[in-house]
C-alpha cells in the first residue's frame, strides 16, 4: 500500500480524488474572445461560466486545455508543474491523441495557476496522469467533435463521414480543411454534452504509448532560461538568507551594520519566524524560519557578505536532536513492548509458537532531497499584491500561503509557474517562496530573488525521516509465511503522531494478505523537519519488508519468487488506499513472474555474484525488479544491471515512462548505497556534495525496463519504480555473499560502490 500520510492529509487526498472523478464527468464550455480568433475549451468546475471566463482572461493568452487558433496553431496547456517527471509533455499528449492533432506542430504552454479552471495543480504523489487522464482525453475529443461539426456544416455532409488526422479534417469526396481553417466556424458550434463525446479505443491510438521527446528539450540543450534560478525581473536584486545551524534557532543579534558596508550590499535585515516552519504542511499555511537576509546587486556579492555575517542565535527553542542517541533509543525500544498497536488479525503469537521464527532489526538514515537546483524564488511584494516566479510543486498552496503572508486576497497574488531543477518532494514545501515574499517586502517592495546556497539546501530540508523496523515472522512446516509482526520505531514531534511521511499503514503488505499479523509502533521525540521524499514511506518500507521476507524465504529454504507468488494467493483486488490505489495480487504476480523471466532468474552465476528480486506496490503501480550485483572481499559492490517490470496500465509516453524508471533505479542505487543525513545537537552534519556522494555515471547500472500491457486505468511513474531497488540489491548482496545489509545506506555497514 502507498499511504503514509497523516489522517488530515488522507482526507485532503480523498476529496481531491472525488474532485477528479467529478471533473471527468463534466461537460466543457466554450470561451469566446480568444486572442487571434479560434476557440478555447474549459471545464466548468462549479463556478458560473461568467466567473470562469473572467478567470481565464486574467491571462493575456486566455485559457487552457485546448486553444485552436485561426492561424492553425494548436495550443495545448500543461496544467501541472514539471520538475523532471515529464508531465509538460505527457499531459498535452493525451489531449493531442483525442484531438488528432499534428504533434509536431503543437505548441505547449505552461498554464496559469487557477483552481477554477484546472482543479488541483500539483506535482506530487505520481498523481498527474491518474487524476487527469479522463479529463484531458475528453478535452481533446470535445474539441475534435466541434471541428468535425464545423466541417460537416461547411461541406453540408454528415459528421460520420468525416475523418481527422494530423490537424486536418477530410471527407471522402476529397474535400479537406485544416483545423485552423475550421476554427472560426467551430467556435460557433455548440459544445457537445459530455456523454455524447466518443473516446478512442486503445487500438486506435497514434501518439499514446509511443516515444515522444520532451517538449522543452530544445530549450534545455541550448541553455534557454526556464528554471526558477534563471528568472530576471527589471530592477531585481539578489538575496541570500541565513538560518540557524541548529534547526529552529532564532536570530538574537547580528553584525548588520558591518554587512551593510560590504561591496554591493543594498540591504541587510532580520526576518522573524512565521508559523511553524519545521512542520511540513500542504495546506498553504505560511511558514518561515527566522534568519538574516542580505540583499545585493549580484548573487556573488550577497554570497560574500553572507560569509562575513556573524549571528548570535537564540537556541532556546532549537532542535538538540542527535542521530547517535536516536539509534541507541531505537535499539532500546526494539526490545520493549510497543507504545501502540496499530492493527492486528488472527493469533500471531500462536503462529510464532507453531512455526520457525525469524527476527531482525532494520533501519534507515535520514536523507536530503538534494534537488540540483537549490531552492530559490523571485518575489515582488507590491503592497496591494504580490508577483512570484517560483519552481514549486504546489503552486496553489504557494498562492494561499503568500496571500496570507502578505495580507492580500488570493486574486492579488500572481504566481508564474517555472520549471523546477528537480523536485523529489522538496518543492512541495513553499518555505523559499515565503522567505522571498518577506525579503521583498522588508527590502522596500522591490523584486528580489532569494537564492539558497547548496549548503542552505542541505542544512534546511524536510528530510526523509529515518526509522527502524523490529520485525518478527514465522514460516510453517509447509514453508509458508504463517505470522508477521512489525514493531515500527519512528519519530514524532508531538508524541501523538509520526513525523510527516514517517508513518506506516496498518495494512502495509504483507499484513494485508496474512491471517496472523500485528502492526505496532513506538516514537522517538524529534524536532528534525521531515516531509515527502520520492515515494514517501514506500522508499524505505519496501527495503525492510522485501529484505525480511527474503530472510523468511531463506529460513523456509524456498526460492524467493515461489515464496512471494504463494504469499500473494488468489488473484484479487485488495481494499483501495486513500490515493485510490488498488493493490491487485494478480497484477503483482504478473510483474514478479515477468521480472524473473526477463532477468533469467535461477541461472548459474560466478562466485561473488548474485541476483535479488523485490516487489512493491505504491502510487497505484505494481513493480517487480531484479538486481544483478557482484561483491568483493572488501565489500565493494558493483550493481551490473537492474530489470524493471511495471504494471501502470497503458503507458502514455513510453520514452518518458522508461526514463522515469531508469532514473528511479539510478537514484535508488545511489541512495541505498551511500546517502545519509546525520545530525548532532540539532545541526545537520553534511554540507555539500563532497559529504553527500550522489552516484555518478561510472557507478550507474544498466537498466532494462518492461511495461506489462494491461487495460487498467493509467497511473503515474515518477515514484513507484524507486522502492523495490534497495531490497533487490540487498537480496542480491545476500545471494552473492551470504551476508545481508540491514541498514540504509549500505555504506553504514561497510559496503561501497
Amino acid at each position, binding site marked *: 500500500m502507498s499511504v503514509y500520510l497523516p489522517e488530515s492529509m488522507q482526507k485532503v487526498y480523498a476529496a481531491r480524488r472525488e474532485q477528479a472523478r467529478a471533473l471527468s464527468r463534466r461537460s466543457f464550455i466554450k470561451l469566446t474572445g480568444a486572442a487571434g480568433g479560434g476557440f478555447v475549451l474549459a471545464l466548468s468546475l462549479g463556478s458560473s461560466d461568467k466567473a470562469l471566463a473572467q478567470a481565464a482572461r486574467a491571462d493575456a493568452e486566455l485559457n487552457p486545455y485546448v486553444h485552436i487558433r485561426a492561424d492553425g496553431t494548436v495550443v495545448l496547456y500543461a496544467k501541472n508543474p514539471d520538475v523532471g517527471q515529464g508531465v509538460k509533455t505527457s499531459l498535452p499528449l493525451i489531449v493531442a491523441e483525442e484531438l488528432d492533432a499534428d504533434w509536431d506542430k503543437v505548441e505547449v504552454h505552461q498554464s496559469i495557476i487557477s483552481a477554477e479552471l484546472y482543479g488541483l495543480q500539483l506535482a506530487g504523489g505520481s498523481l498527474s496522469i491518474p487524476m487527469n487522464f479522463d479529463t484531458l482525453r475528453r478535452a481533446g475529443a470535445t474539441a475534435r467533435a466541434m471541428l468535425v461539426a464545423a466541417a460537416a456544416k461547411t461541406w453540408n455532409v454528415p459528421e460520420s463521414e468525416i475523418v481527422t488526422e494530423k490537424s486536418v479534417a477530410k471527407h471522402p469526396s476529397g474535400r479537406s480543411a485544416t483545423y485552423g481553417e475550421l476554427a472560426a466556424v467551430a467556435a460557433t458550434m455548440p459544445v457537445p454534452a459530455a456523454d455524447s463525446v466518443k473516446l478512442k479505443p486503445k487500438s486506435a491510438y497514434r501518439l499514446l504509448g509511443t516515444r515522444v521527446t*520532451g517538449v522543452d528539450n530544445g530549450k534545455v*540543450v541550448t*541553455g534557454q532560461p526556464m*528554471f526558477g534560478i534563471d528568472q530576471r525581473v527589471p530592477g531585481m536584486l539578489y538575496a541570500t538568507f541565513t538560518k540557524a545551524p541548529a534547526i529552529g534557532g532564532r536570530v538574537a543579534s547580528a553584525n548588520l551594520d558591518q554587512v551593510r558596508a560590504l561591496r554591493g550590499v543594498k540591504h541587510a535585515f532580520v526576518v522573524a519566524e512565521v508559523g511553524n516552519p519545521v512542520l511540513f504542511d500542504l495546506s498553504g499555511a505560511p511558514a518561515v524560519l527566522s534568519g538574516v537576509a542580505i540583499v545585493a546587486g549580484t*548573487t556573488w556579492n550577497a554570497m560574500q557578505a553572507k560569509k562575513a555575517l556573524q549571528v548570535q542565535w537564540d537556541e532556546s527553542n532549537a532542535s538538540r536532536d542527535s542521530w547517535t542517541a536516536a539509534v541507541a533509543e531505537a535499539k532500546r525500544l526494539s526490545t520493549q513492548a510497543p507504545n501502540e498497536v496499530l492493527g492486528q488479525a488472527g493469533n500471531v503469537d500462536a503462529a510464532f509458537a507453531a512455526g520457525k521464527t525469524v527476527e531482525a532489526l532494520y533501519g534507515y538514515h535520514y536523507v536530503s532531497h538534494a534537488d540540483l537546483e537549490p531552492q530559490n524564488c523571485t518575489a515582488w511584494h507590491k503592497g496591494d499584491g504580490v508577483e512570484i516566479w517560483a519552481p514549486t510543486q504546489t503552486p496553489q498552496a504557494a498562492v494561499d500561503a503568500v496571500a496570507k503572508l502578505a495580507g492580500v486576497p488570493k486574486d492579488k497574488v500572481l504566481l508564474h509557474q517555472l520549471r523546477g531543477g528537480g523536485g523529489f518532494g522538496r518543492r512541495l514545501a513553499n518555505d523559499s517562496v515565503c522567505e522571498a515574499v518577506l525579503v521583498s517586502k522588508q527590502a522596500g517592495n522591490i523584486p528580489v530573488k532569494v537564492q539558497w546556497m*547548496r549548503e542552505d539546501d542541505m542544512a534546511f530540508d524536510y528530510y526523509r525521516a529515518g526509522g527502524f523496523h523490529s520485525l518478527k515472522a514465522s514460516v510453517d512446516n509447509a514453508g509458508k509465511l504463517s505470522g508477521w509482526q512489525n514493531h515500527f520505531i519512528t519519530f514524532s514531534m508531538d508524541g501523538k503522531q509520526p513525523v510527516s511521511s514517517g508513518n506506516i499503514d496498518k495494512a502495509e503488505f504483507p499484513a494485508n494478505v496474512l491471517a496472523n499479523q500485528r502492526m505496532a509502533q513506538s516514537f522517538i521525540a524529534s524536532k528534525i523537519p521531515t516531509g515527502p521524499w520520492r515515494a514517501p514511506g514506500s522508499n524505505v518500507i519496501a527495503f525492510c519488508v522485501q529484505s525480511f521476507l527474503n530472510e523468511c524465504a531463506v529460513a523456509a529454504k524456498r526460492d524467493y519468487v515461489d515464496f512471494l507468488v504463494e504469499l500473494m494467493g488468489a488473484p484479487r483486488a485488495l481494499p483501495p488506499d486513500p490515493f485510490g490505489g488498488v493493490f491487485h495480487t494478480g497484477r503483482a504476480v504478473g510483474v514478479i513472474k515477468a521480472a524473473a523471466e526477463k532477468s533469467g532468474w535461477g541461472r548459474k552465476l560466478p562466485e561473488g555474484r548474485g541476483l535479488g528480486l523485490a516487489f512493491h506496490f505504491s502510487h497505484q503501480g505494481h513493480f517487480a525488479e531484479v538486481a544483478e550485483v557482484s561483491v568483493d572481499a572488501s565489500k565493494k559492490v558493483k550493481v551490473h544491471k537492474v530489470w524493471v517490470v511495471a504494471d501502470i496500465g497503458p503507458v502514455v509516453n513510453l520514452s518518458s515512462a522508461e526514463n*522515469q524508471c531508469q532514473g528511479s533505479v539510478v537514484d535508488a542505487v545511489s541512495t541505498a548505497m551511500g546517502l545519509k543525513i546525520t545530525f548532532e545537537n540539532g545541526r545537520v552534519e553534511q554540507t555539500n556534495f563532497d559529504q553527500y556522494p550522489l552516484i555518478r555515471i561510472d557507478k550507474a547500472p544498466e537498466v532494462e525496463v518492461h511495461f506489462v500491457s494491461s487495460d487498467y486505468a493509467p497511473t503515474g511513474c515518477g515514484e513507484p519504480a524507486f522502492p523495490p531497488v534497495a531490497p533487490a540489491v540487498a537480496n542480491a548482496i545476500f545471494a552473492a555473499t551470504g551476508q545481508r545489509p540491514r541498514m540504509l545506506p549500505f555504506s553504514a555497514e561497510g559496503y561501497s560502490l
Partner: protein
Amino acid sequence: MLKLTVNGRDHEVGDDVDPKTPLLWVLRDTLNLVGTKYGCGVGQCSACTVHLNGVPIQSCQVPAESAVGQKITTIEGLAADGKLTAVQQAWIDEDVPQCGYCQAGQIMRASALLARYPQPTDAQIDTEMAANICRCGTYVRIRKAIHNAAAKVAKKGSAS
C-alpha cells in the same frame, strides 16, 4: 574593467563587479547567460561546466579575471549559427533530460569528450563524464546519446 570573450563576442564587465567573482556568476548575473547552472559552488557537480579554449572547466571555481583573453564557450554558444550540434541533437533524439538542470553541463563536457575521442569507449565516457552529477539519474541515456552523437558525426564525416 574586465574584457571577456564569450561565444565569440567581446563583453566589458564594469568595475562594479569584483574581478575575483567566479566566472559562473559573471555569466549568469552580469552577462545574462543563465544556461550555465549553479549546483554546489565547490567544484563537485559540474553543472557550471563551460569551455575555456575548448577545455571543459567548472566555472564556479574560476575567477572571472583569469578568463580574460581566453575563448569562453557556454551552452548558448554551441549552436551559435542556429544549427544544433550533433551532441545537442542526440540529447533530443534520445530524450535525455528529466528536469534538465544539469544537462547544459553534461552537454558541454560531452562535447569536449567527443572532440578528444570521436568514438569514445564506455570507459572513456565513465572517466570524463564522472565529473558531472545528474540528480535525476539520466546516466543511461547520457551514455546512449554520446554514442549516438559520435555515430552522427562519423556518418556525416564519411558522407562528405
